[in-house]
């Protein structure tokens, strides 16, 4: 019985077939170069829908809300945010916003225990650029899952890649709360249209 099993197992794959199979596998892996885009969509572009809150509570306080299909929202500074357009850019980030330090509370578990429940106007942090402090706000009502504490040591991330490694925080809104607030934001297309027109003047407005 045992021997019978052996032969039956091995017979589908002789060594010749195996090498043919390896060839086939290689062919599967190598893409057709003509199918490839010259510049592929980035992970942010393909995984998130991009929304913008412009002039949020104050002029030129422009923030982005990148919403993942799973409902989580990444919050950060839009390219037109005043702080990013100051001379020398952002110099420091402080998550200590009065009552609590946003970078200290650790959320744990699938149920996200200890998460702070924030309102759209709740402060996430202060960013300092050219001596001016700008309050970065939550924009959506929801649980604060994490803040990007790498910004404390390395605020330069905001100047280099505010839309990627320089994100500020990740919020988990309730689906109903998201539906309520979503229409108050600009789409990516509307945002670029709006800020391209006024991009030159936005920085000077704040100063």
């Amino acid at each position, binding site marked *: 019985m045992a021997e019978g099993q052996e032969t039956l197992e091995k017979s589908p794959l002789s060594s010749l077939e195996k090498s043919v199979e390896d060839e086939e596998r290689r062919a599967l892996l190598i893409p057709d170069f003509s199918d*490839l885009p010259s510049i592929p969509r980035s992970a942010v572009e393909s995984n998130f829908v991009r929304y913008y809150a412009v002039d949020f509570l104050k002029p030129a306080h422009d923030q982005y809300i990148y919403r993942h299909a799973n409902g989580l929202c990444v919050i950060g500074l839009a390219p037109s945010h005043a702080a990013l357009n100051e001379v020398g850019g952002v110099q420091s980030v402080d998550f200590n916003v009065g009552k609590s330090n946003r970078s200290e509370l650790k959320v744990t578990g699938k149920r996200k225990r200890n998460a702070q429940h924030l309102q759209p106007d709740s402060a996430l942090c202060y960013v300092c650029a050219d001596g001016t402090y700008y309050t970065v706000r939550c924009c959506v009502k929801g649980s604060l899952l994490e803040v990007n504490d790498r910004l404390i040591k390395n605020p330069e991330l905001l100047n280099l890649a505010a839309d990627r490694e320089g994100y500020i925080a990740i919020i988990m809104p309730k689906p109903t709360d998201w539906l309520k607030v979503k229409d108050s934001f600009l789409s990516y297309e509307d945002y670029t249209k709006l800020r391209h027109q006024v991009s030159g003047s936005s920085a000077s407005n704040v100063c």
Partner: protein
Amino acid sequence: MADDARSIFSRAALSLPPSHVSLDLLSSGVCVRCIFRLFGIHGDFYSCPFLTGPGLNYFLKLQNGCQASISENGHGSFGIHKCSYTSEESDFDQKYCSICLGILQFPHDLYLGEGSSKENFSIDVFVEKIVESIKIANHQIDGFFLEVSIPPVIAANERSFWSYMKKKYDSEAWFKNKALYNQISLKDALRLSITESLEKTLSVKSGANSFHICLAYTNSEASLSLKNSLRKVQSSNRRRTEKENVVKVVDQCGNGQLDSREQLCSKSDAAILKELSSLDDHTFCDIFELPPKKASNSCKLMITCYRMPMFIGGRYLKFSRKVSQTLWIIDDERMGEASVEEIVGTPALEICRGDSYKFHAAGREDIDVRMLGSGRPFLVEVSNARCLPSMVDVVQMAVKINNSEKKYVMVRNLKVVGSEAWNLMRVGEAEKQKQYAALVWISRPLTDEDLQSISSVNNMEISQSTPIRVLHRRSPLERKRIIHWMKIEKIVGSSQFFLLHLCTQAGTYIKEFVHGDLGRTFPSIGSLLACRAEILQLDVTDVKMDVFI
């Protein structure tokens, strides 16, 4: 027949207590098999069809008579036992044993849904009944395991008889060394009674087989009265502490009585047994009759049979980026075109003719990730298989899957395996290595130094925060993972696209390792090459495990 009975009774008598005790038990309504097992009598006695109360009674009286030299003129012969039976009949009008409630007496009215008949008790008819129900279920069998469940009231009856005997015979010499734990359990006695006959009729052996014959005995009347007795103890124990709570409950549901009855019925047998054994002897004797009342109702029997889960294992390859590993439904809508689970599970269920199947795999890949190369180990668990597929059946199943029209999935090394394969699949799951090929784009042209720096990686530790794409359902954590090695394969005609071959520890999120997940995975391909890196395609090329290779 008479000689058989006499020889069995005389052999058994050696282990039995003095005859006045046996007679006492008999007249309290205990059946012969229960008397035998109470005193730990082993051997082939149980399967003997002549173990009737009147028979033992006659034998014991005869024995007594001999000892006391009262027996005069050869009247006590088994040859005329029929007369003896009738003369004693009045003592035995009670039909069911007061301990086993008929379980070891094999009465005809035992079977659920059938009216009582006045026929004799018989093991043969009992075995026939079992075989009948197995035939209906239409199982292919190579052996069987006898599973017996009995109502907890039996345990109470046993204890009650021991307490009764202790009270009455504690001072007698024979009672020393006799104890509850010497007895043969009812379940074992039942197995001793019927196994041989079952084996003969089914022409297979009993043992640790995955085919189970379940004999489930219930006695709702006796169980209810047992629960009521136990409730009395409970309420007296808890009266002080829980009085207020009870009042509240009654207030809330308006009909407290009904509610508590439901609760009692749902209490498991195990819980009742535990409660029983936690009673001290004094309390026990207080709430239970010694000896228990004679039984007017037999237990009811439900005969079922099933095959323990069967496993078909192997490795699968997935060639499509639109096929998920398991059936994936969001809002009643299937995600992807098919699933490995169904493609492999459905034919497995067919060849085993089981009730249902479950699909288990050693890890998983995303729907848009192909599974190539060695394939990924998996198990299909088929419950209650009616057929035991042969090696040929399994090979045919593999051929069918591998030659399917759409070629989404292929299987290899398919075979029927034992449940130990389950553990094999789980062994080293956390440490096992996986090999991938990723199609990567970087934001600047690839240099020779890049090739160098990437291929110099050797067991590099990375730190991965739970990726944003799964953060909504997984715990936020920072996990350390090992990248064992990496190799860049250039793509002819492109300076910014390349194939990245890499081998990592299980549980590494590869997509995030490439693009960095907003800096939350570090280092990443992007951070190592100091540019932006994007991943376009991913394939698993090897799952390095010892199972099903």
